[in-house]
């Protein structure tokens, strides 16, 4: 363990004004409010914890079944169940303030107004280091089209949030679009300090005995190792298209996976579904990144980011 704590290895990265001790964060909705993992994971070592998406009012979520396993992946249709802003501030923030890692609050809304309201109310709360805006939600006012599939709607949400907060704002992009770089550029122009991607791909599974969907919600979000190649491609494309930092998400479970995203241009990464089956994934990635740098005789993780060599370059 001595060598892994080698002071010569520098894992620090910056996302705009937000500095992280290392680039390893836990993805929203896969790490609860952190307390759920307190006995299995050292919560003080992580780059950041991103909490489960918070809405203005508590949400009960979708009827069960809500999860189903697929080939090297899983589908979820949790339905954005969460304790709501008030519940979060009253019941979850105290614990989060006690951990020695950055805390990023993921927010979601039905309307541009709600996003703005959430941003305002979370600003100035002690212990919150940044906001991550989940735009893969239906815009109720626009007939349920997801904010995340329309560049102008995504930009509008970004502006609304930026106007109401001085916290760093990360906009989390949906992969269910023809060209994710269009979305990334739209939110960059609207003032986003960073983008994170990808959220889940939309998928489905059917029980052939009952001829019913396996999820009560019919469709759900696909996550896990199965989606990693798609996520990596989108991160690479996006990192070349914008000048704000990109946070890579999608099927990351090992040091190798994390390195692929960093090399593709991600400044930081988030571990999602892997938390469910291997709670210590994020810790072991932190150890693995240190070891990788040591083995290569490099001292800073920043010298790895965006170093993909292609013939064309």
């Amino acid at each position: 363990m001595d060598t892994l704590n080698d002071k010569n290895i520098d894992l620090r990265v910056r996302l705009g004004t937000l500095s992280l001790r290392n680039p390893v964060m836990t993805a929203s909705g896969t790490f609860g409010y952190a307390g759920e993992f307190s006995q299995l994971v050292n919560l003080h070592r992580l780059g950041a914890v991103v909490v489960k998406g918070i809405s203005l009012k508590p949400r009960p979520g979708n009827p069960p079944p809500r999860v189903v396993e697929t080939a090297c992946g899983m589908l979820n249709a949790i339905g954005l169940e969460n304790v709501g802003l008030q519940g979060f501030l009253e019941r979850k923030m105290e614990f989060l303030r006690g951990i020695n890692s950055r805390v990023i609050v993921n927010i979601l809304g039905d309307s541009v107004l709600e996003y703005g309201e959430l941003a305002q109310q979370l600003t100035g709360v002690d212990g919150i280091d940044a906001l991550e805006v989940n735009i893969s939600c239906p815009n109720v006012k626009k007939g349920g089209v997801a904010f995340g599939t329309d560049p102008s709607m995504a930009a509008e949400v970004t502006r609304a949030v930026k106007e109401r907060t001085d916290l760093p704002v990360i906009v989390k992009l949906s992969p269910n679009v023809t060209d994710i770089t269009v979305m990334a550029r739209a939110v960059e122009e609207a003032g986003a300090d960073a983008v994170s991607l990808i959220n889940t791909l939309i998928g489905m599974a059917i029980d052939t005995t009952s001829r019913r969907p396996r999820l009560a919600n019919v469709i759900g979000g696909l996550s896990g190792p199965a989606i990693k190649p798609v996520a990596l491609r989108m991160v690479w494309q996006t990192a070349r298209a914008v000048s704000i930092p990109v946070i890579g998400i999608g099927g990351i479970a090992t040091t190798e996976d994390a390195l692929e995203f960093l090399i593709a241009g991600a400044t930081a990464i988030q571990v999602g579904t892997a938390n469910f089956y291997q709670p210590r994934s994020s810790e072991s990635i932190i150890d693995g990144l240190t070891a990788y740098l040591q083995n290569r005789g490099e001292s800073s993780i920043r010298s790895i980011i965006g170093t993909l060599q292609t013939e064309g370059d």
Partner: protein
Amino acid sequence: MPEFQEKASLLHREVIAADIFRLTLHAPEISGTAHPGQFVMLQINDGRDPLLRRPFSIHQVNAGGNMQILFKVVGRGTAQLAGVLPGHHIDCIGPLGRGFALEQRDRLCLVGGGMGIAPLYFLARRLLQTGRMVEKDFVLLGARNRAELSIFVDEFSELGYTVQTATDDGSMGHHGFVTELLDPILPVMKRVYTCGPFAMMKICADKALAVDVACQVSLETHMACGLGACLGCAVTGADGGYLHVCRQGPVFDAREVAWTR
């Protein structure tokens, strides 16, 4: 409550019936802190397919740091688990969830169907350790046939419980539903503990609640994490809200649960 992640060594693998297995694992931290009704999440293999851990009730623990699980092969995960041989290790997280409340008063009834027997044996042993006279307590066990049942009849009987059985094919005990054995004894019971198929637990709950006997049920559902993080394990509660089986359960008071599905 304490939780651990342990690479447990597989000490012993029993084949109870064609598709039913009992594994004895050396998991000192988990077994040292487990309470009846709690469960563990087992990793099936080192790979990524099947991806998720699988939940299993803790069937028994001993003072030597060993823990047993009892399971039936129903799909890919359990099939692979059944193929792990002694000497290999299985990554376990636990003990998880809220278990059974240990009743002090006289006359309890434990009703287990199929693999629902698993947590009830742990419960039966722990109840015995509270110093009660278990001869007056009933254990009602149901399964498809004698082969799946006889070993458990012996084991519960050895503890001193009064055991009654029911089988689908009539090869042992009552020919029919295990819940039918409940009727004559229910009025004198202080509490019913049940684990097994949803339909069976529903009948237990209906009967018990009808005569105001407390009833604890252990629910199953799909779980991605077992840790309260994914919110995937929701089931509908009596008030129409959702219960999270992995943290609020898996053991619930029968009155908390919506018994329609």
